[in-house]
Each structure stands twice: as C-alpha cells, then as structure tokens.
C-alpha cells in the first residue's frame, strides 16, 4: 500500500469510530446536551478535557513555534502558560462553578451579578473568543486534509463539518465527551510515536523527555549542547537561553496564557459534566496529566527536529548540502509552500543562516517541524498516516468543544434565561440543536472565507478570556462585595483595553490598513507584545471592578448566600 492509501485507511477508521460513538451517545434532554447528564467519571472527563483543550495549534504548530520562531527557551512561555493555567483552574475556578451546578459560564456571571446585562456582556465575550478560536480549527481541518489526503481545502473542510455536525448536533456534550476521549487516544499516539522514534535515533533513549537531556548516539556530546553549538556557528542565537524579547515580556506572556486558560469557557464547561465539586478538582488534575504527556514531549520534538533539519542541511560545519541532492521530503514540502529555497550566491549549495541576506532557506514554516518530522526522521509510512489522523483529531475535538460553548450560550443564556424564559425543555433542546447546526455552518463559512483576522485568532481568544471572563469569575467566587456595576465595567474595560492594544499593533480586526496610533511604535507598553497583553487587561479589569464596586450599592443578601453556598462542596 502506498502512503495515500494508508492515510485514507487510518483517517477513515478514526472517523468511523467517531460516528459510531455519536450514534451510541445521543442526547435526550437539555441536561445531557449541555453537561452530558453530569455523571462523567473524573478521569474520563480529564481525558476529554485534554482533547478539548489541545487544538490544531498545540498539535501541529507548538513544537515548531518553540523550535523555530521562539528559538528554544523563548518558547517556554507556551509550555508553562498552557499548563500552569490548570493549577488556577483546579483551585480558583472549576470546583466552585461545578458546585453552582448550572450549564454555562455566562449563566454563572448573570446570576452572581444579578443582572441580565452582565449575562449578555459575558455571552458577547464568550462568542468573540470562541468564534475566533474555532476559525483556526476549521482551517486546521482543511489544511490537514489537503496536505495528507491531497484533496482540496474545501473538500477537507466539508468532510470535517459533516463529521462534527453529526456528533455535536446529535449528541451535544454527551456525544462530544465520548468522541473526545477517542480523539485523545488518537492524537496522543500520533504525537508520541514519532517522538519516541526520533529520540531513539538521536540519543538511544526511547523516552523523549529524557532523550532531550541525553548525549547523542555514538559520542559524549549532549544533544542540547550540540544544538546550541550548531545554531551559534550559523549565526543564530543559543537555543537554551534566548529570551522572547525580554524577561518582562516572558513573564507577561506566560501569565496571560495561564489566566486565559483558566477563563476559556469551552474548557470550564467540561468540568460541569462531573458529579461533584471534588470531582472537578480531581478531573483538572487528570486533564493536566493527559495534557502534560504532549506538553513535555513537545520541547523534545522541537529541539530534536530542529537539530535534524540543521544537520540535514549542513552535515558538517561549512559543508552545506548540494541543492540538487536534497532529500525527497524537501521537494514534497516545497510544493506546499511551507519550505522554500533560493540559491542566493549561486554556489548550488544550501546555506541556512540567521542573516537574512545570506540565508537561502527563505521559508521554513513552523508547522513543518511536526508535519514533516516523520519523513525527516525516515519513519515508516504508517507513522505519517497516524500524524494526519492525530492532527485531525486535535482540530475536530477542539472545534466541537468550542461549538458547544457557543451554541449553549445562545440557546440557554440568550433564549432561555433572557429573551424566552417560557420555552419548554423540548423546545430548548431543539433550539440548542438548531444553534449548534448554525454554529457549525457559521464556522465552516468562516473557514472557507477566512477573514483577515484568522491569523491572529489564538492570541485574541486568550487575551479576551484572560481580560474579560477570568477576572469576573474569580471575583464572583472570592468576593461578596463586587457589584453588578463593578463587574460589567471591569469586563468592558479589560476587553476594551486588550482589543485596543492588539488592534493598535495589528489593525482593527487584523486588517493591517486599519492600524492606528502607529507613532507609538512596536511594543510600546514596557516592551510587552500584543499576544502577552491579556494579563494587563485582566489587571485593569480587577482594578476597575473593585473601584466601581466600592462606590455602588452592595449586592443583595441573596447574592451573599449564593457565594457562600458555592464555597462549600
């Protein structure tokens, strides 16, 4: 069997599995549709949360971001930020919201701040951050299909939409939970198998986390020392010590990703599916275990694949490979545009250098590190097929979780709780299915016609979650004194200032012509980059909410007892 056939087989089998699960796990009530009946085992929910959380970006892009763009150490912001958030989630957010025992995040905010306006503002924040996030997943599905199965981008996207439609509309949270468990198994296998192979080849140690700290095969040079040396020789900066801009920027970036994680609605609602508040804590711990398997492997993949690429291009110092003799995978990936070379000095050899005037590897996309990793390491075809199925699993599982967060905010918070309180249970279940169908089509449309802002979406989603939703939740749980006026003003200020800073750098809605105040220069706020600004927005949200609450009438007594109630398990 050739590569294409194996890939079709592996991806086809994984899809068939998701459909079987969807038919088996149909939702019959709104409780099943929104929170899977509330009876999911905490370990199983941890696994589903891990799949829900790890998106196409974690699976396909993160290792490349660490290994290439952020040049090693700088990429630590993703590793610490996207895992450290679970500590906050387990201690400050998840158990209390589970104890509250409702269906959505805006529902808690609306009730705690005794205000439909707060509920609607929360829905707005949720929809903004989930929609921007889901576009990235839809694009990931289209791209994975077109690269591995050689279909058009559109065909890939439609296939993905049909699959998600099937199990999300039919099964709601219940169907999504069980498919996410299956998707986790697929994606983690697909991520670790190539990593084990490549670690064995380079260091003789099958565990990538240990291989990264080991010596290279047939010598006593440590892998990381070798990589540092090669990068310095070719004019790059040292892998193990290079900062992302500055120490302060790294602190802000890590903090923003951490609190963004703890404020993302599609992650929080996963903890509504377990039986008790204490299960929510345990479940967050298991989620982090399952996530950490990928997140501690990723830095090994990053360094090892970077080393492999450097050594393929320049096997020994100052004797780069001849362009005509480049390996087959090089040519394949050039066709996709992820790699491009240009023989600037005309010597027929490929010089990969830090200096842009000398560098002849003119394009080296971050995604190449994971996507081409099996080919670079000359692994068998079934491993490549597995990576395709894993990338699709990561994108599908996250897309489904996001779509549920969006549709439940519309059918439950906007219809049931705000505009049509008399709607029946059956009516609400149908409305939630309808909202889900709409959300799938909407996301598909945006995936087919990606707006200019698609590129910056993940940054925006985290910035919004960090600066608007997270502070409102934490203050709602830890203070009885924050008033509805304070919470609304805080959310709007946090949201506003984060959007202001991001759009000032990238243009309104990421249209680069719509930039403003360009005279301020890049990263003018203490050298903090726009992606790292969420924590500043969150800080402002806290300050404004506390200040406004101090001068407005304190919340009614019923809110006091609501807050005291959620503090007990």
């Amino acid at each position, binding site marked *: 069997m050739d590569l294409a056939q194996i890939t079709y087989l592996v991806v086809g089998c994984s899809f068939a599995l998701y459909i079987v699960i969807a038919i088996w796990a149909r939702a019959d009530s709104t409780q099943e549709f929104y929170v899977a009946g509330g009876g999911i085992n905490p370990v199983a929910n941890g696994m589903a949360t891990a799949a829900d959380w790890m998106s196409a970006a974690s699976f396909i892009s993160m290792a490349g971001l660490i290994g290439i763009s952020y040049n090693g150490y700088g*990429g630590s912001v993703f590793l*610490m930020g996207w895992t*450290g958030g679970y500590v906050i989630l387990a*201690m400050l957010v998840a158990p209390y919201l589970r104890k509250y025992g409702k269906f959505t995040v805006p529902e808690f905010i609306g009730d705690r701040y005794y205000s439909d306006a707060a509920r609607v503002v929360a829905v707005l924040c949720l929809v903004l951050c989930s929609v921007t996030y889901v576009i990235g997943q839809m694009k990931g599905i289209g791209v994975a299909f077109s690269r591995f199965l050689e279909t058009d981008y559109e065909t890939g996207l439609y296939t993905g939409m049909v699959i998600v439609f099937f199990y999300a509309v039919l099964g709601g949270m219940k169907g999504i939970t069980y498919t996410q468990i299956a998707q986790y198994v697929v994606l983690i296998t697909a991520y670790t198998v190539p990593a084990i192979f490549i670690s064995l080849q380079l260091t003789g140690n099958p565990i990538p*986390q240990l291989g990264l700290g080991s010596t290279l095969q047939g010598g006593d040079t440590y892998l990381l020392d070798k990589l540092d040396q090669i990068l310095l020789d070719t004019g790059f900066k040292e892998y193990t010590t290079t900062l992302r801009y500055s120490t302060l920027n790294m602190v802000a970036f*890590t903090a923003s990703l951490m609190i963004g994680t703890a404020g993302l609605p599609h992650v929080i609602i996963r903890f509504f599916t377990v039986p008790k508040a*204490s299960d929510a804590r345990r479940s967050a711990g298991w989620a982090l275990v399952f996530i*950490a398997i990928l*997140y*501690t492997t990723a830095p090994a993949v990053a360094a090892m694949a970077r080393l492999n690429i450097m050594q393929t291009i320049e096997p020994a110092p100052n004797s780069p490979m001849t362009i005509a003799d480049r390996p087959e995978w090089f040519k394949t990936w050039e066709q996709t545009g992820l790699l491009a070379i240009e023989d600037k000095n005309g010597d027929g050899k490929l010089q990969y250098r830090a200096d842009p005037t000398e560098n002849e590897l003119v394009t080296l996309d971050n995604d190449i590190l994971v996507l081409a990793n099996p080919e670079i390491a000359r692994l068998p075809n079934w491993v490549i097929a597995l990576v395709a199925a894993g990338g699709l699993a990561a994108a599908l599982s996250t897309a489904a979780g996001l779509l549920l967060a969006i549709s439940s905010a519309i059918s439950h918070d906007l219809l049931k709780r705000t505009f049509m309180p008399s709607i029946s249970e059956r009516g609400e279940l149908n409305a939630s299915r309808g909202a889900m169908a709409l959300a799938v089509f909407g996301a598909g449309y945006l995936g087919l016609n990606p707006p200019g802002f698609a590129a910056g979406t993940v940054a925006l989603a985290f910035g919004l979650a960090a600066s608007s939703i997270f502070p409102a939740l934490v203050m709602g749980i830890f203070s009885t004194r924050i008033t509805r006026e304070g919470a609304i003003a805080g959310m709007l200020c946090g949201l506003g200032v984060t959007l202001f800073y991001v759009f000032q750098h990238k243009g309104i809605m990421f249209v680069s012509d719509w930039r403003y105040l360009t005279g301020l220069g890049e990263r003018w706020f203490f050298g903090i980059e726009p992606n790292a600004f969420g924590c500043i927005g969150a800080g402002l949200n806290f300050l404004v909410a506390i200040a406004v609450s101090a001068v407005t009438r304190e919340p009614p007594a019923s809110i006091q007892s609501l807050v005291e109630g959620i503090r007990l398990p």
Partner: protein
Amino acid sequence: MTPLTPVQRAAYWRRNRNLMMKLMVIWFLVSFIFGILLVDQLNLIRWGGYKLGFWFAQQGSIYVFIALIFYYVRAMRKLDKEFGLDAE
C-alpha cells in the same frame, strides 16, 4: 449531613484559602521565578544535558503543577471529611 454553623463555614473557607495560598506560592516559584526570573543563575547548574533553569521552564514546572493539583485534591478531601462535607 448536618448544616455547618457560620463559624464553621468561615473556618472551612479560611483553611481552604490558606492551603491555596501556599500552593500558589510554589506554583509561582517553579514557573515565574525558577523558569524565568532566576533562569540565568539556575542555568549555571547542569543536570545531565539540561541546564537547570531551562529544565524548569520546559519540563520541571509542568511536573510540579501536576503534583500541586493532586496534593490539593488530597488535602481538600481530608478537609471535607473533617467538616463532615464528604457525604454523598
């Protein structure tokens, strides 16, 4: 389960908050302090092929995060039992 008196509730909440505070200090220490602010100093220490600061930033902090959550789960289970809040 017998309902707690207001004094007991306040005590339960205070113990929970103190525990969280302690664990958040460790959380801050392994990520922001060891992984970022003191990374250069720690990098002078080697652990096999790893510089220690780099190891904390890309591996160690994550392992500590997991340990923190499970420690919290266990400590809270004990606290719940002490206050008679663990009944189904």
